[in-house]
């Protein structure tokens, strides 16, 4: 023994939803080296987005299916700050509600995926069952389950009716006990915590060095949440970032679980704030200038850099997706772990390869 074997983990692997390749060097079943290969899903989104600024909000949703609304919000916010306009309050609140709904679906997907990666099929199914409540809710509100196509530069193009607001409230009250039950299972289940506690530890120092964002960094004790900057309507609601210190898979899982409950709180805080008024304002002329736009996507800070030069085509649009930073930090977590823990660790950073590769 002691002879190292190399095994390809992916790009087609049962643990991954999307093509990512980790070439592992194993000694017996201990991982001694890891190399990341990505780019199986590279579609040249940055080029596609820069073709026509009026159509790009729809295309930016297609960067990634599970944080589509965050992508289009980031894009529209960028254009709005180039134009120098403020979105009406109702529009901002609707955006916030939709973003939190999407955070719920995304986090429940990630949680289910973690459960699946340790072979806990039942818990996986329960996560997806509760997720379906939110999915059908957003389907009723926006007209689609995944790509809402609600954002336009200047606001949102689809208003929420009073019945819709009641529907949201009703769904949240239905969802809350179910998520509490899930929270209980995730935090208490002994076999699950045996597989996640102390696995894939990312220290605070390492998280800072690798520039991790989102739940991964918050699980390593970095209290940074872009929502605190108060984009959209986040300045109108009260919340504090959820931080844990352990930095292992369990912490990342629980940060997501707690954020689900927090998302529901934020949605319920938003609902009474919604007042009658316009949801969008029209913008005139082609954009000229440049802007950074940041939103807190489910996976972390999503940065759009837009530079426009007064033409239909944007000069440059740059996406820095959260998964790009988080997936890279796998290299810090994988060496030294067991082969059995590789799926759990890779999945616990929530690798959205569509985002990573763009």
């Amino acid at each position, binding site marked *: 023994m002691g002879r190292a*074997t190399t095994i390809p983990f992916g790009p087609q692997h049962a643990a991954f939803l999307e093509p990512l390749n980790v070439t592992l060097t194993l000694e017996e079943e201990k991982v001694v080296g890891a190399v990341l290969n990505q780019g199986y899903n590279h579609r040249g989104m940055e080029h596609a987005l820069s073709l026509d600024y009026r159509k790009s909000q729809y295309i930016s949703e297609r960067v990634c299916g599970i944080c589509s609304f965050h992508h289009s919000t980031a894009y529209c916010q960028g254009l709005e700050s180039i134009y120098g306009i403020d979105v009406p309050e109702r529009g901002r609140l609707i955006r916030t509600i939709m973003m939190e709904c999407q955070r719920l679906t995304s986090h429940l997907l990630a949680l289910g995926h973690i459960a699946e990666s340790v*072979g806990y099929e039942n818990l996986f199914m329960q996560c997806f069952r509760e997720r379906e409540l939110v999915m059908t809710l957003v389907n009723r509100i926006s007209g689609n389950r995944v790509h809402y196509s609600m954002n336009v530069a200047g606001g949102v193009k689809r208003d929420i009716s009073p019945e819709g607001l009641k529907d949201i409230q009703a769904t949240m009250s239905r969802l809350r006990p179910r998520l509490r039950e899930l929270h209980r299972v995730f935090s208490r289940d002994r076999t699950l915590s045996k597989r996640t506690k102390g696995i894939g530890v990312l220290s605070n120092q390492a998280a800072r060095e690798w520039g991790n964002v989102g739940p991964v960094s918050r699980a390593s004790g970095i209290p940074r949440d872009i929502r605190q900057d108060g984009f959209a309507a986040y300045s109108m609601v009260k919340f504090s970032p959820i931080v844990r210190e352990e930095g292992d898979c369990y912490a990342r899982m629980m940060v997501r679980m707690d954020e689900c409950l927090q998302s529901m709180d934020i949605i319920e805080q938003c609902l009474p704030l919604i007042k009658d008024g316009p949801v969008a304002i029209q913008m005139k002329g082609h954009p000229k200038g440049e802007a950074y736009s940041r939103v807190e996507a489910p996976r972390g800070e999503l940065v759009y850099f837009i530079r426009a030069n007064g033409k239909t085509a944007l000069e440059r649009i740059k996406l820095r997706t959260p998964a790009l930073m988080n997936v890279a930090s796998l290299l810090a977590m994988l060496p030294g772990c067991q082969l*059995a823990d590789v799926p759990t660790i890779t999945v616990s950073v929530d690798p959205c390869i569509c985002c990573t590769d763009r």
Partner: protein
Amino acid sequence: MDLLAYALQVLTVIVAPLVVGLAMGMDRKITARMQNRRGPPVLQPFYDVGKLLSKRPMLLSELQATFAGAALLFHAAALALFVSGSDLLVTFFVSGTGSVCLVMGAFSARSPYSFIGGQRELLAILAYEPVLFLVVLSIGMRSSFLVGDIQGGLLHDLPLVLLALVPVLVVLLEKSPFDVPTAHQEIISGPYVEYSGPYLAILEVARWFQLAFVFGMVTLFFWSGDAVISIAGKLALAFAALFATIVIDNASARLTRENMVSFMLIAGIGLVAINLLVLFILKGSI
């Protein structure tokens, strides 16, 4: 031996794996219902095997086919020996050889996943075979090693031994927490990964034979003079064991190799030992 009894035995060897296949379908249905899903039809395992058989055969090495066939033969032989009422020990070893054939088949393909799967399968054999062996020994010592001579009283005397068979079934049915050798999220079904088409179907049928043997051991624990009550009780006992594994599967995550080996050896051997000890104290003999 008269002809009728002989025909009955042949029929049992053919029907038993089919019953196991049906049980697998029920397993999938019950699992689905526990997860609040509808699940596939009960006959799905047969559809699967039929589909696999209709596919184009592909192999990495000729040896794979040999070992797949050998696994099927050994498991079938074990079941035949069991049904014909011969020595339980011999049956046990023949069945064990079948399991080793699966490992050899995994090792004969040059694939890292298959190799790791083979290693893990060996480890699993190391974990569950001692427990199974002790169960065989305690049945033999309590009653008789010849299957044909075993009569009632086992359930009454050896309840913990029966309980020790449940984790063994968890491993054999490839259910969490001990589906380590075939963990598809980790090593993509381990020893089976390089098999496809008809050869995978052969391995699946071999597994049914193996499970028929192990479930057969479970059914030994119930015996009654009346044939109808006897068969009904045996089936009920086997179903109870299956249901227990399904419940365990749906309430736990997969554990690691080390957990599997230590749990199987400590809990399995411990349960058998406690049972025998109590029996010895109460009755003065095993």
